[in-house]
């Protein structure tokens, strides 16, 4: 997988008109960020279950999920007191380094999309979409049954999984 690591800027787009509200994106986000990467183990095994980097919203017939937009002028980056929030040079993604995080919640304050999840016990940012930098393809995009979550390149052209 390592060599397949993505190295081009990409972006996730949500098409709420096609979101079924199944929340499989969250399930597979959790699996993708789990130790074993095995869905049963991630949910029923001994390992700690990670928090998904996705916010799901639903009301009546409307639903959609949202994850970090990896903004060009990311307010969370500018707000971060410790440098825990940083921009990956290769991919241009906004990533988060838990070790440096002190839980000042400045990013929570600054993010206009409200897609950063706090963990008050750990006093750290609990999770934030990393566009599955470890995988070749974001788990939520790959597993969205209705292609409501799609991946595009910088020009906005759709990227499909080979």
């Amino acid at each position, binding site marked *: 997988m390592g060599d397949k690591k993505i190295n081009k800027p990409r972006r996730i787009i949500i098409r709420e008109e096609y979101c079924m509200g199944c929340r499989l994106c969250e399930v597979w986000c959790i699996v993708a960020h789990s130790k074993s990467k095995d869905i049963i183990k991630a949910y029923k095994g001994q390992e700690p279950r990670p928090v998904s980097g996705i916010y799901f919203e639903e009301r009546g017939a409307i639903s959609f999920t*949202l994850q970090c937009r990896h903004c060009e002028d990311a307010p969370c980056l500018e707000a971060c007191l410790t440098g825990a929030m940083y921009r990956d040079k290769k991919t241009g993604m906004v990533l988060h380094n838990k070790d440096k995080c002190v839980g000042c919640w400045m990013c*929570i304050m600054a993010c206009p999309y409200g897609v950063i999840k*706090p963990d008050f016990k750990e006093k750290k940012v609990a999770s934030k979409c990393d566009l599955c930098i470890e995988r070749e393809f974001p788990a939520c995009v790959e597993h969205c049954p209705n292609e409501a979550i799609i991946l595009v390149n910088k020009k906005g052209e759709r990227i499909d999984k080979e």
Partner: protein
Amino acid sequence: MKTKYLIIGNSVAGVYCIEAIREVDKRGKITVVSDENIINYSRPLISYYLGGRVTKEEMAFRDEEFYRENEVQLILNRKAVRILVEENRIELSGGEEIEFEKLLISSGGEPILPPIEGIEKVKEGVFTFTRLEEVDRLIDYIQANKIEEVTVLGAGLIGLKCTEGLLERGLRVNIIELADRILANTFDQEASRILENALGRKNCRVRKEDTIVRVEEKKGKIDKVILRSGETIPTRLLVIAVGVRPNLGVVKGTSIKCNRGVLVNDFMQTNIKNIYAAGDMTEAKDFLLQRKSVLAIWPTAARQGKIAGYNMAGKKKKYNGLFIMNSVELVGVPTISFGITNPPDPENFEILARKNEGENYYRKIVLKDNRIVGAIFMGKIERAGIFSGLIRDRLDVSSFKDDLLSDDFGLLVLPAEYRKHMVRGEGFTE
């Protein structure tokens, strides 16, 4: 010596300025002058350092590599004493001079010291709380003198941050605040009360509408403080944290225009066209108040530094102004606040609020003409950031006003069209 870009001050504004310059100009020489003796540290973290939550090493928000990579010449432990505007030079403590093409002033703020009778006699046990070396001395002093109780003058952001650290070290704290509430410029009575009660449960007592009028010493060390109310508090350690003011030392006596802070235009440019300013000593456009103001907060310094950097390097970029916002967590009660939370003329605003004492839960939204101009989130701060966007975009909220206070508040309640640009869009760009 000569340099293309000269930056006074090595905090957040300076760092973001460097990043911006290097985006545009890979080669041009950058020189940074700092009167502190540390490569890089995050000033707001001093309370965490005091509380023992971070080590000194962990306080760096950019490592040495950062300066190497960007080929920045760091001049530490030297103070910029004077700017010779006409000659494009500055004078350092110790006489040395540096010639620049472009200059950024980001000298930050300096603590305000109110007049207190007897203070001059006190040789030990009185501290301010803005710089790392102070905190080091403070910690040594606490340990050396086995301090158990501290008096903090001022319940502003700095005072409370300091209190947070002290409480985490297991000390008792007495706070004295002149105003009728703590965090006066972001909190209202309600928020203040909730937090005071929480503090109260954690051996911290707050005295409001009071101040220290006199101090007494014993063998040069501070011994007691006497309040305006007449109360006397025996104390062996006093932290003065009534706030900061722009540190304008370096511009004194130059032709650079100042008001409360150094005045800049939308490109962070002072009245001198190759001299820029950013950070806590800068008076720039304020997004909410229709005038310039000094916004001594981290995100502002970062954004201003960045904008200044771009413009210094020749890439025109406009500063659209920010507004006051804060995030503090005291005694386990997180609070985030935006903009005008406590309008002086409430009759001209619409205020929505919801609270739950037991859970230290409080939420307040301040509206003007159906647009959000301020908000307080206490206890539950998740997704609070969405409001910063709503304020910035001046979105008319009349269609979903009832949802503003609801717990499941999210992007979904926003108008579909507005939401689309958020879920489909590229994310935030200035």
